[in-house]
């Protein structure tokens, strides 16, 4: 597809131009700077999210013990150092919201789609630098609003990250459903708008601004992943927005979309005819694709990092693309598996079980392809590679328990128990998070022109990996024992007293895991200023971003944009001395491009 007509920049080469501090670092329209802004904001929110999880893990392991740290951080919400039950629910709610949306969606997609799409497809920048800048700043504003919601008098939203009404609709039902919930909804509305703007940019850029020779079938798998993720986002986020708007109307304008026949705090409310189940459908219509919006970029990043570090082509490129498309399509028709016992017609349960178990197939194909890529490779075990291998490991473990949960019958006894918590943390909280880490370690030289310290990277990986399994593997047993999630304490039912030891073990692993992330933070910040200066292509990778100069310039390349002559995975191709051939290197005499 010709890209000549699509060139929008006046000068057809990269350049430096006079910038002020504000236009370079704050209101930048350069995709590379915007990607760093997303990363920093995402990491900052991640620190808050992890800190919250450590607080409620302390509460779960030692339920009746006062903690000094509670008094310091929670103030009036922890009288005499004992956590208040309402704030426990607020912590799990905001933890979930921050981690899913602010860290794993914006922090992952926002960072890497922005950094890599123009550089890997051979474009000067995103299709619209202005919209890109606006999308970041809207993300920033939504983060600020979410953080502000922590400080309102009655507390932040506390109805779970899923915020089902009527609990989330009625301030009388729970203090956090007052101003805290309003601010949550405002924050999320802005977040969704930001995400849509970003996604539109990514889609338009990938379709229109690929360099000469960069056909869709030569695209690196990162780009396929980011592109398809953006499409899923555009299809599903507006539905969450609609749910949020209808909820705002029920809360503030007396409508009855989700509410009917309610008696609370001594009075019969006026609402008639609505249903919470409608909300659940609208929420999960986004909610399920959302987890694939979280996961697909991580999988794309993994493909790239494993191929580069294995010095081998990613196995089964076509199957990998097909599975991304299959996962994307199927992800829009499985949402009801979150609602098997919601009271909806059981027939729907059958339909959703069928579609849900289907989605296991492309996921399995991807896992097998990653493993086969490692076979007979020459594995460069850089920290990024370790995290990518770790991602495959936890993706398999977590994905397999999805087969249990996706079966409507089995879901009857494990729905909303710790079995579910273990499952989604393994696939999202660990797998996708590993994707984020892998991406940071791998593209740090591209983002900051310096290398991260590899020994600290190894330390970070191994401690995290052991603790990740240590936290979430035993958790499956607590769930199978019948323990519900979102319980402030297990001590109300003596039946669960024998789970106390397991909870303590989980919390200890969680605390160590939290400490290990400090190693990463230290490495990240220190290397930004004092890391070894990077060369242009430190990982000897094939993709185009490594042909751009180390020092950033607007327009990415000083001269013409490289033209592409081959796919991204000519690693260890027979007949060549070097074990990699970048995409812009023309075919040599008699060489054939791999037909795939």
């Amino acid at each position, binding site marked *: 597809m010709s890209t000549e007509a699509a060139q929008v920049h006046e000068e057809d080469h990269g350049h430096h131009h006079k910038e002020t501090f504000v236009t370079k670092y704050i209101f930048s329209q350069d995709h590379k700077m915007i990607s760093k802004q997303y990363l920093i904001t995402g990491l900052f929110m991640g620190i808050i999210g992890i800190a919250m999880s450590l607080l409620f893990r302390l509460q779960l392991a030692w339920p009746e013990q006062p903690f000094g*740290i509670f008094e310091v951080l929670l103030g009036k919400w922890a009288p005499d150092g004992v956590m208040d039950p309402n704030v426990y629910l607020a912590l799990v709610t905001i933890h979930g919201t921050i981690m899913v949306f602010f860290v794993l969606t914006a922090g992952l997609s926002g960072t890497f789609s922005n950094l890599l799409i123009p550089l890997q497809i051979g474009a000067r920048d995103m299709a619209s630098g202005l919209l890109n800048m606006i999308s970041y700043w809207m993300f920033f504003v939504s983060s600020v609003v979410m953080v502000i919601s922590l400080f309102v008098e009655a507390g932040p939203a506390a109805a779970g990250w899923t915020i089902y009404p009527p609990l989330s609709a009625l301030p009388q039902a729970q203090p956090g459903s007052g101003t805290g919930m309003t601010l949550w909804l405002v924050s999320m509305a802005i977040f969704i708008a930001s995400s849509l703007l970003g996604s539109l940019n990514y889609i338009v850029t990938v379709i229109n601004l690929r360099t000469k020779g960069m056909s869709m079938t030569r695209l690196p798998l990162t780009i396929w992943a980011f592109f398809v993720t953006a499409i899923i986002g555009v299809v599903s986020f507006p539905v969450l927005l609609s749910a949020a708007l209808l909820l705002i109307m029920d809360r503030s304008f007396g409508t009855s979309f989700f509410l009917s026949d309610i008696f609370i705090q001594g009075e019969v409310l006026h609402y008639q005819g609505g249903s919470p189940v409608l909300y659940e459908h609208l929420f999960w219509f986004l909610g399920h694709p959302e987890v694939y919006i979280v996961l697909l970029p991580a999988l794309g990043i993994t493909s790239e990092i494993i191929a580069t570090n294995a010095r081998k082509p990613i*196995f089964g490129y076509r199957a990998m693309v097909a599975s991304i498309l299959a996962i994307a399509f199927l992800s829009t028709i499985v949402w009801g598996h979150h609602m098997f016992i*919601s009271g909806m017609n059981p027939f729907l349960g059958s339909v959703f079980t069928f579609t849900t178990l289907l989605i296991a197939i492309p996921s399995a194909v991807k896992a097998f392809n990653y493993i086969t890529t490692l076979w007979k490779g020459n594995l*460069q075990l850089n920290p990024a590679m370790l995290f990518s291998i770790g991602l495959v490991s936890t993706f398999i473990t977590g994905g*397999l328990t999805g087969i249990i949960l996706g*079966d409507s019958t089995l879901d009857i006894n494990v729905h909303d128990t710790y079995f579910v918590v273990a499952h989604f943390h393994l696939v999202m909280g660990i797998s996708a998070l590993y994707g984020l880490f892998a991406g940071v370690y791998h593209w740090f030289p591209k983002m900051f022109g310096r*290398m991260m310290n590899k020994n600290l990277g190894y330390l970070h990986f191994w401690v995290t990996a052991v603790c990740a399994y240590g936290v979430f593997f035993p958790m499956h047993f607590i769930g199978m024992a019948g323990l*519900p999630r979102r319980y402030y304490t297990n001590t109300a039912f*003596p039946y669960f007293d024998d789970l106390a030891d*397991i909870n303590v073990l989980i919390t200890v692993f969680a605390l160590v895991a939290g400490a290990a992330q400090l190693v990463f933070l230290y490495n990240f910040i220190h290397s930004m200023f004092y890391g070894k200066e990077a060369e242009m292509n430190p990982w000897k990778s094939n993709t185009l971003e490594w042909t751009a100069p180390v020092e950033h310039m607007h327009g990415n390349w000083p001269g013409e944009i490289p033209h592409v002559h081959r796919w991204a995975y000519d690693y260890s191709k027979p007949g060549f001395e070097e074990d990699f051939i970048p995409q812009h290197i023309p075919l040599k005499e008699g060489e054939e491009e791999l037909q795939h």
Partner: protein
Amino acid sequence: MNVLLIFSVLVLIAIALWQITKIFELSQEKKVSTQVANDKDNDLNGKLMFAFLIFIYVLTLYSFWAYSDVLLPEAASEHGGDYDQLMWISFALIFFVQTVTQALLHYFSYKYRGEKGKKALFYADNDKLEMIWTIIPVITLAGLILYGLYTWTDIMTVEENDEALVVELYAQQFNWKARYAGNDGVLGDANVRFLQDFDGKNLVGIDATDPNGFDDVVVQELHLPVGREVIFKMRSQDVLHSAYMPHFRAQMNCVPGMITEFAFTPKTTTEEMRLNPEMIAKVKKINKIRSEKSKELVASGDTALDPYEFDYLLLCNKICGASHYNMQMKIIVESEKEYEKWIAEQQTFAEVIQ
């Protein structure tokens, strides 16, 4: 004070790490680290990958050895046996896949750890292989789906019949009530707008103009006759709750504005379950923990805890507010005779509102 101490320790550790890294780098030979993995790094991390596989296996085996006793005992309902069988088959399947794939992943990471001078194999695709590992999961999952759907349809199809006991489970912030249909087997109409009738004595909002409601019995303890199907009709007064009865493999959301239903047939009485060897061991373990706790309580001037005796659980399983973790109602499964005796002693709605 503690916080300051911990914070200082963390800062000092960070500084120590920084200095150690610097010293280490300075102590290296002229060659400055490229921060890219070399043969030594690959060798070490490859071996650690294999060790990690062992860790995964050991963790799995340890968890089953240490934690099997917290798992639920044999199902106390008739469909529960089908549920458990499906669960075991599914688990066997996923454990097989887990064992094999984790082994391949970590073993390859070890076996093919990089060395300068080695060359990787240029192996980009194999359609036959892709076909095989697509078709096999398809067939396996299809089998699992069909089996699962058959069981699901069986459990979730509730046919109205004369033998079944119809009980309403009424959820509110933060307790449960149960309403029996009485001799006519029909629950009277009810709605929250009737709650304020009769000076608050109308606990679940029965519509007093519906004669079916007069013989309804509202209680705060659920008694179920063994061997008889019970059809639960769930209601909620305020927000979403969920009636979760894990021993019976039963769960259903309670939705305000809607009546949801779930049915099962209890097959083990409370007394019988108390005599189950697994349950005896579990109760013993719990009482040991409780007596240790009691020692602490008595030492600090509080009263000791009562010893624990097993009762079936009814748990709220949908986040519903501050006391979501403490919505209690006892479930007792007993013989038909004991059940009849008990229900005869309860007041009907007509008697309550007199």
